[in-house]
Structure formats: structure tokens, C-alpha cells
């Protein structure tokens, strides 16, 4: 359903727009099936964030194209929605107001968007926190708001840019599990950027390993661990350790 074809992106120097500063993406191609959970994994500077931002339509690629259901996309659209690394919450809006933001832009009437927002807040376990301001709740809760805001738009593809990078380890595991639970209830496709090997193996059906300079795909690794993964201790499964070792090796080489 999502196809990335020979995508390339070069960043030029800020003060000398004719001088190339970084080849962020070079000839990147892959495709994602409907309802698949794909992780983009790599060291910093490998272009994974650039890639997801191009897919989101926030920046333009220099070469190549992106197709969703066969139609090329170059700008943000209703079919895709982004969850940001630093949450991207508007600090002057309450939790409820933040979830409503996307619906408000779509011009959905007040009563209706209230109701939708409350439903999604409940889904991410934030019932009762509607009137808090972002700075009054923890980082983990803030990202739940970010997720609720993205889900409320019911996108076909959920784009997540290191969404759990800014929260502590314990909260992170909890959020991973909840994300899997929510995903299992919907038919959303997820593209998830991370630099944690464990996170990528635990969450995804497929890990796309990237490397830097120029930013490109190293290899794709299928993760054929049983689902649901939150029951039992999937991380103790020998296949988990095997995949982890294999990806680590790939990242190193």
C-alpha cells in the first residue's frame, strides 16, 4: 500500500545554498503492506528521520517518489499522520485541546470533535486528564496525548518518529505494549523510527536497517515472532536473541 521508490535527498549548507552538506538519503526503496508494522532502524545521521519526514510530506525529496495506494504523494495528507519525537504538543492547549487540534483543522464541529477526542483519550488511558496542561503531566503521558491526537484522525498509516525516545526506560516498555494493543485493534499501518534494536524487534513485523553517509538501506530483516507479544516473555524467546544479534551485526558491519 505504501511504496518508496528510489528516494534521494541532499541537504545543502545553510549559508551557501549551492554547496551540498549531507546526502541524507540515497536511492532508498521499499514497500509496506497494509496493516504491517515496520521499523526503520539505524544510527543517528542514517537518514531515518529524514525518510519518515519525506513520507509524511513535511519535506520534499530531490529524486524518487512515494506512492500510497498507487497515488504519488508530496504533501501531508489525511491518509498519513505523524507522532513526533518531542511530542509536539501545543503548550497553551489542554490535553483535550491538543487532541482536538487535528480535528479542528479538519473543520469538524465542536461537539463532535470533543466526543471523538474523549474516546481516543480513553483509548490511551488518559481519561480524567482532559483539562491538564502538557507541562502538568509526565513525558509518557504527553506522548499518549500525541498518539491520541494522531489516532483521532484515523489515518491509514501512522508515522512515528522515535516517539518513545524522550521518556524513561520503564515508561517506554509500557508504552510499547500499549501501542501494540492499540494497533492490534485497528488495521493501521505503522512506520516506526527508532535507534533501539530491542524496540524494533519487539514491535515490528520487519526491521529496515539503515546506514549513514550516504543514508541508505543496509538490509531488511523479517521478525517472525508470534503475536500478541505482550503475553508471556517474548524477549526471553531464543529467536528474539538471535534476531537481536543478527541486527547488531548488521549495524556494525
Amino acid at each position, binding site marked *: 500500500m505504501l511504496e518508496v521508490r528510489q528516494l*534521494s535527498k*541532499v541537504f*545543502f549548507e545553510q549559508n551557501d*545554498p*549551492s554547496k*551540498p*552538506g*549531507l*546526502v541524507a538519503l*540515497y*536511492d532508498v526503496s521499499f514497500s509496506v503492506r497494509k496493516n504491517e508494522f515496520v521499523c526503520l532502524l539505524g544510527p543517528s545521521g542514517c537518514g531515518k528521520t529524514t525518510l519518515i519526514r519525506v513520507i509524511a510530506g513535511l519535506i520534499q525529496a*530531490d*529524486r524518487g517518489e512515494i506512492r500510497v495506494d498507487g497515488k504519488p504523494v508530496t504533501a501531508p495528507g489525511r491518509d498519513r499522520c505523524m507522532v513526533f519525537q518531542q511530542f509536539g504538543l501545543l503548550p497553551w492547549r489542554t490535553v483535550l485541546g491538543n487532541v482536538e487540534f487535528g480535528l479542528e483543522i479538519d473543520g469538524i464541529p465542536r461537539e463532535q470533535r470533543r466526543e471523538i477526542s474523549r474516546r481516543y483519550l480513553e483509548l490511551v488511558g488518559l481519561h480524567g486528564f482532559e483539562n491538564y496542561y502538557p507541562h502538568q503531566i509526565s513525558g509518557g503521558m504527553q506522548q499518549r496525548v500525541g498518539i491520541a491526537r494522531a489516532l483521532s484522525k484515523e489515518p491509514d498509516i501512522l508515522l512515528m518518529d522515535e516517539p518513545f525516545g524522550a521518556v524513561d526506560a520503564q515508561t517506554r516498555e509500557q508504552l510499547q505494549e500499549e501501542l501494540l494493543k492499540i494497533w492490534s485493534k485497528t488495521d493501521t499501518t505503522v512506520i516506526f523510527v527508532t535507534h533501539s534494536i530491542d524496540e524494533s524487534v519487539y514491535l515490528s513485523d520487519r526491521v529496515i536497517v539503515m546506514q549513514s*553517509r*550516504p543514508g541508505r538501506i543496509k538490509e531488511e530483516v523479517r521478525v517472525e515472532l508470534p503475536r500478541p507479544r505482550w503475553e508471556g516473555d517474548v524477549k526471553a524467546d531464543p529467536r528474539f536473541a538471535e534476531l537481536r544479534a543478527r541486527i547488531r551485526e548488521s549495524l556494525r558491519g
Partner: protein
Amino acid sequence: MALNALEQQALTDLDLSRARPFRLADRLGAVRVLSVGLLILAWEIFGRDVNPLFLSYPSAIARATMQLLTAGEFQRQALGSLQVYAIGLSAALLLGIALGLLMGRYRLAEYILDPYVYALDATPRVALIPLLLLWFGLGPMSKIAIVFLSGLFPVLMNTFSGVRTVSASLVEVGRAYGAGERNIFAKIILPASLPFIMAGIRLAVGRALIGIITAEMFAAVTGLGALLIRYSSALATDKFFVPVIFLAVLGVILSHAVELWEKRLAPWKETERAL
């Protein structure tokens, strides 16, 4: 950061044309110059058509400048203004810093003085000009007084809040090393509040300039302010712009000078901010 071989290869493959399409945002310097140039040009062209009693134009102002400078009148008045300005401002800085330190450090001094300081700070100082002229006459004394009052409060208020912000932990460090009150004042409080004091001075320099011009305009006897009134009542708009431009340049130079001075006196503050 230089590109590595693989990246160079990738660039060649991609064959991105190096020349970006023309964008105004890439040529901001040119836009600035053009904007100023066009305005001056338009002023010159249209200014000639306007009645010279109402608006002059650049070349006429340039001619008037030469004329005033050769006559020497302008320099004499400017010098008079600057002397008054320097005396009043120095007094304001000295007393402002002293009172600010005193009020910041001693609560008794704060409570005794702060009703007046807050009241006078909130009162527009220009409102005192008629009163000061009444008291001190039309000579330099009344102008020194207004410059002093205009410059005093920004310095005083900033010094005061600077001393207040000096964290108790720094003072504690001083005490732990056995410093007496004098040393704590000279080695901890003064340097730590220096950036605040300098910010106050920067404000004071501008306010005092406004103070002196207003006073001179009101008294209309000597100084640049009096020249402004004289030329405008004589409807000599070309001459009128000469002191205006001089004052604008003076304002810019003074505030840059204070900024430079600030950086020299408190260089650690800059890096601290950047961190």
C-alpha cells in the same frame, strides 16, 4: 563537514543541478540595499515636488548639513548638549548603582526608599521638565537635572534586581571562605550583578538622550533640541533634518558602545547564556 567518497559518488549519480531556482530569500542583503535605495530615491524625486515648507529631500539635507557645519553653529550647540548629557548621565550612573546596591543588599534601605523609587519610576520624567525649569531656570542646571532623573531609574532598578538575583549560594560560598561584608560586596555581589547593571546603563543612555532633547526643545534656548524648534518654526525643513540625523547616529553609536563595553566587562555572561 566534507562529503566522503560514497556521498560524492551518490551526488554525481543523482546529478542534482547545483543552481537552485532563484529565490528572494537567498538574496536578503540585496533586498535590504534595494529597499533603502528605493526609498531614498523616491524621497528625492517626490520630495522635490512637495512644498519645501513641509518636506525636504536628501540632496537638500546634504547641502544644509554642509552649510551648518561650515557656519560652526551646529557644532557649538551639539557640544553644549553633549556636555550636559555627559555630566547628568555620569551622576545618574554613580548614584543609580550606589543606591541600587544599597537597596538590594539592605532591607531597611529598601523599605525606606522603595516608595519613592517606584513612584518616580512610574511617573513620566518628562512631566517634571516644567517644574525643573521653574526651579533651576533655563541654564544647564535644569537640563542636567532632567538627564540625571531620566538615567537614574533604569540603572537603579536594574542594579537592585541584579543584586537581588545574586543567588544566596554564591554569597554562601563567600562566607564559607571567610569573606567579610566588604569582600562579599566587592568580589561577589558587584561582579555577579554586573550584567544587570550594564543592561540598566544601556537603557539609561537612551532615556537620558530623550530627556535632554525634550528639555532643550521645551526651553528652546540652547542645544540641539533648541535647534530643532528654531528650524521648525523657521520652516527650514532641510536644516531640521540635520540634528535629527545626528541624534539618530548618536543613539546608535552610544548603544553599540555600551554593548561593546558590556561584552568586555561581563564576557562570562555571554558564554553562560549560550550554554
